[in-house]
């Protein structure tokens, strides 16, 4: 792509990625959450692939590293679900404890972030999985369409 596109991409990409992470982290107070923030992040990666060559992106972002991130996000999600198995599966055992455990007052309030127990952690886990998964899909399809060898 031309020099203008590459320069603007260099300026904009950190903001897009930061906005994606913001949407993931504030999923329990504002609209958003794991999948939405992960999709924004992956569209930032797609912008990088379009502006620079997909072979150049592959030098920095390998598909096998993305696979490890994806699996660890999924394991974190299901590990948190298993951790409440003393009472039931998916029980929110962190409400009232010290990590993310504050109980907010009722009614309209300016959102408190350190609340809601297991849910922000599950948002982070799903966000990691979606970031890695959607980026891998976009990267591999870009490489396959231009017949470049994918590093195994």
């Amino acid at each position, binding site marked *: 792509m031309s020099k203008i596109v590459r320069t603007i991409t260099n300026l904009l990409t950190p903001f897009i990625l930061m906005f994606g992470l913001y949407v993931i982290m504030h999923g329990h107070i504002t609209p958003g959450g794991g999948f939405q923030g992960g999709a924004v992040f992956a569209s930032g990666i797609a912008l990088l692939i379009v502006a620079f060559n997909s072979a150049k992106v592959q030098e920095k972002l390998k598909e*096998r590293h993305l*696979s*490890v991130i*994806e*699996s*660890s996000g*999924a*394991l974190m999600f*299901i590990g948190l*679900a*298993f951790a*409440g*198995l003393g*009472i*039931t*599966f*998916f*029980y*929110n055992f962190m409400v009232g404890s010290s990590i993310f455990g504050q109980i907010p007052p009722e009614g309209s309030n300016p959102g408190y972030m350190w609340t809601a127990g297991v849910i922000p952690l599950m948002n982070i886990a799903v966000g990691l999985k979606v970031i890695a998964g959607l980026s891998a899909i976009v990267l591999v399809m870009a490489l396959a369409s231009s017949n470049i060898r994918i590093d195994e």
Partner: protein
Amino acid sequence: MQSLVIHSPILAIAVPLLAAFLIPLISKFNSKVRNIVVIAALAFTEFLVLILARDIYATGLHIYTLGASASTLAIPENFMVPVRIILEVDAMSVFMGIISVTVSLAAAIYSISFMKQETGGSKFYTLLLLLTVGMVGMEFTGDLFNMFVFLEILSISGAALAAFRTRFADASEGGFKYIVISAVGALLILFAIGIFYGQYNLLNIAAIAKVMQYTSLDKIALVILIVAFGMKLASVPMHMWAPDTYSVAPAGTSPMIYVASQACLYALFRICFTLFGVTMDTGTIGWIIIMLGVLSMFVGVTVAVQQTDIKRLMAYHAISQSGYMLLGIGVGLAVLADPVALASYGKAAISGGIFHIINNALYKGLLFLTAEALFFSLGTRDLNRMGGMARNMKYTTIFYIIGALAISGIPPFNGFTSKLMIYESVYQFSPLLAIIAMLVSILTLASFTKAFQSAFTGPALPQYGHVTEVPRPMLFGMGILAVLIIFFSLFPSIVVNTIVTPATDALINQAGYISAVMGGL
């Protein structure tokens, strides 16, 4: 041990899911450990389903509320309707669960030797475990939207498995047809779920069944659900994807995709018997399902007789055998409102249909595995080019004979028992249907005899002189299913009294299902 039984509905779904997420990490280190993890996870799931089954036959149905402070607390205080996702396991659900996990275990053992010559093994086992999760989840859940989500998990994993061998040109085509049909069917199911949610503001099956009035919007939703589930289980005239997909699926996964379509059959009957029950016009809907069954039986077997590709032949017979189940249970549905007819032949028809589900999963699975064993050894699926394999592949020939005699309904095999139950009860309902069913059975025997003669008997062909028996894990996987067929053939009354009759009673008993969740409110 008792707490393991209480948590076993969700553990039977969560343990394969955990194993599916562990496999990509483990296979980077060692692939033998990966095989052991897959087999161990499926064996543990089988153990959980069996102890859950024993407890259900002793005490009654189990419910499990995800995320509540006690697992049986379906409706929280000060509420009138359930708000969480509830898994509700009765005798019919656990019957289908036993079938799904057993076939998955046999398929995983069968695929070990097959995957040694393919790349991408970690992705194959991940998809196989996700397919198991989808099947068991669909059978154990008591919530309509949860059923939709597990149906989509099942379709996506099945389509990715069908298109797995990317070096063949037709594998991608078979997978593409499967995913398009599955996606359209699932979106129509979501539309019908939306219709239910818009009217009653509820998503739980028991809660909707309690307040169901049979309005015209509900009739539209029922028709959409019957058509969409018919697309998923390959009943004629929505069957065009089935021969292509079953013939290109790799080893061991054809039986699994087939059992996945039987899970959709279970979902159809759960909706007809429990969600609607006697509030709908069971005579008309029963006749619709009977007509789908008769069309599937007849069209399936008449096209199968002229096939030359062995796996397409097996696929058309799979379509035809699904017709038997639709016929048997459809007759039971048609007389559901009439207590005299239900007691005299309706329950026997439903029992015959349900017994046919498990028999069919066993012998159809065995036949698919033998066809794949022939492809593995010879490298071709065309019957015109095979011949004289009985000399080289003795065990495969024996397994094929057991499977072919069982599917044609020859006594003393288990196919004869379930077909006899269907014939006797359907004859009292309408004699013409029973005669069509017997005719289809004769044509099935003819088709399998022709295939046997082409592939196994005849003079020894010189280009296949070096072919030996298939490797031992494949024989072991086929052997599990063959031993189960022989056990079911020798002791049919034990199987019917222990497993099938409680399932029939649970399917008809709508009031028991509702009161377990709503608690007599």
